[in-house]
């Protein structure tokens, strides 16, 4: 459904480069990385706000040569004032909903009710979280095939995050719709995402289905020297008061029975990847996908 091949974008002081990914229909891709890694840039490329400098972007077998047709299939949520701040939510929804063939006013009203948004309130009067909710409701109401969500959960309250996760699950259940979600909250990735893309300084460090990625690594804790015996399998080692903990690549010799070994969570994976030693750094590219 979504295919990126060697996509690059140069933005003055920032260079997003060599992005390869393939996301089948019906799955959720989580994009993680530190601030300035290129998450928003990539989402803006996919939303058609930026034009790629190199590579191929294929969305449902269409390229951005057919911009209007491609954007019919895309719903996007970004931070900031996306809509007209002086107009009411209802007015904004109807004004921009007219551009989408599949937009349903009734559905929009239903989402606004479920999300506890007052349709007669002016958009400029909403809090950050409410603006994101409104953008999310609008994105859903025109039934896109691809949802692009740029750190939406950061400003959601705990109750709404549950609703949000539930909606994402139901949204992809039909096997036709896909979601790309950038987030700092690794718990969202753990719960919702099927695929993972890790960006660092504009480069793709890791991509693949989450189970495979997690299967390729292990956390090992114990005596530092025992961990160092794993040599180049060690991605990053962190010394503690009572020993050391490390992220290691899961291949080769069996582990020392004195080491405690477990499959890393996404949070542990990302933490250690971000802090890895340059000598044990990963090569850019794809881990195995489905």
């Amino acid at each position, binding site marked *: 459904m979504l295919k990126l091949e060697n996509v690059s974008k140069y933005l003055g002081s920032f260079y997003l480069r060599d992005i390869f990914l393939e996301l089948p229909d019906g799955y959720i891709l989580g994009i993680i990385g530190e601030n300035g890694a290129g998450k928003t840039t990539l989402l803006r490329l996919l939303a058609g*706000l930026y034009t790629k400098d190199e590579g191929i972007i294929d969305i449902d077998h269409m390229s951005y040569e057919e911009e209007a047709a491609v*954007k019919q299939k895309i719903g996007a949520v970004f931070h900031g004032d996306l*809509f007209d701040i002086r107009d009411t939510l209802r007015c904004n929804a109807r004004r921009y909903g007219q551009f989408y063939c599949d937009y349903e006013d009734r559905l929009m009203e239903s989402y606004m009710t479920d999300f506890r948004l007052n349709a007669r309130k002016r958009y400029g009067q909403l809090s950050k979280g409410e603006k994101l909710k409104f953008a999310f409701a609008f994105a859903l109401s025109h039934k896109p095939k691809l949802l692009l969500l740029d750190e939406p959960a950061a400003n959601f309250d705990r109750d709404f995050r549950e609703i949000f996760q539930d909606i994402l699950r139901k949204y992809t259940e039909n096997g036709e719709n896909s979601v790309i979600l950038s987030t700092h909250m690794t718990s969202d990735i753990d719960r919702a995402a099927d695929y993972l893309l890790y960006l660092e300084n504009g480069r793709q460090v890791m991509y693949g289905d989450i189970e495979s990625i997690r299967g390729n690594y292990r956390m090992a804790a114990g005596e530092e020297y025992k961990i160092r015996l794993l040599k180049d399998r060690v991605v990053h080692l962190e010394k503690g008061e009572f020993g050391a903990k490390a992220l290691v690549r899961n291949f080769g010799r069996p582990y020392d029975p004195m080491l405690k070994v477990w499959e890393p969570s996404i949070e542990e994976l990302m933490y250690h990847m971000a802090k890895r030693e340059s000598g044990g750094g990963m090569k850019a590219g794809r881990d195995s996908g489905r």
Partner: protein
Amino acid sequence: MENGYMESYRRVIRDYFQEFIRVFSMERGRFPALFLVLGTIFMGDIWLERIRMGGIFGNWINGIPILFALVSGALHRVSLPFMMYLVPCSREQRERYIQRMLAVKVTVPMGFGLVCDGLAAWAGAISRYVFVLQMASIFFLSCMCGMLNEGGMVGAEKRKAYGELQPFAAPLLAACNLVGVAMFVICMGSVSRVEFWIVISAMMLFLLPMLVVVGKRWKEIRRNFALYETAVRTGE
């Protein structure tokens, strides 16, 4: 979606007038710019001798069409609202929208000026010289601001969308405001035949070339503002 709805004149005209309603939204940059323009006008008015003879604000009503053109120029930006870059429409559609919005941004103030000044001239309140000067300056103001104004002069030199005009955008916008203010003050009083020819010659000599230079680059500017990436790009 209705074919061609996005850039239809109905939508463009509605969006144009809606911007006036939004003036009370206190968006950053708009109110300060507006107050600067209005403040300059009224300060200039207070200190000009010939106007003071007619009362503290003189015949300022004669300058209402120029005032409207100044306000219209200050309020409307060339770029589109963010969602217009996100919704399903092509770059060509966005360019057509921007082009039609420019036409509306010029036509409406000119039309308003024609009606007001036409009535005023018919009633003998203004001379034909004032009429011509007002219409010429409204045209110049509306065209220049319509093609260049993107939130005022501050930071204009950093805006990539202006292309070759990037270093000159701020001075050009400043010239627009100065011309507007000057004409507002001039047209509030009577204008003799000699004064008329001096002012119109100065306009031909200085303002017309500016308009031609900007007009020749309008296609590039319009194209840049039709793309989100170039519309918001600054610095570098």
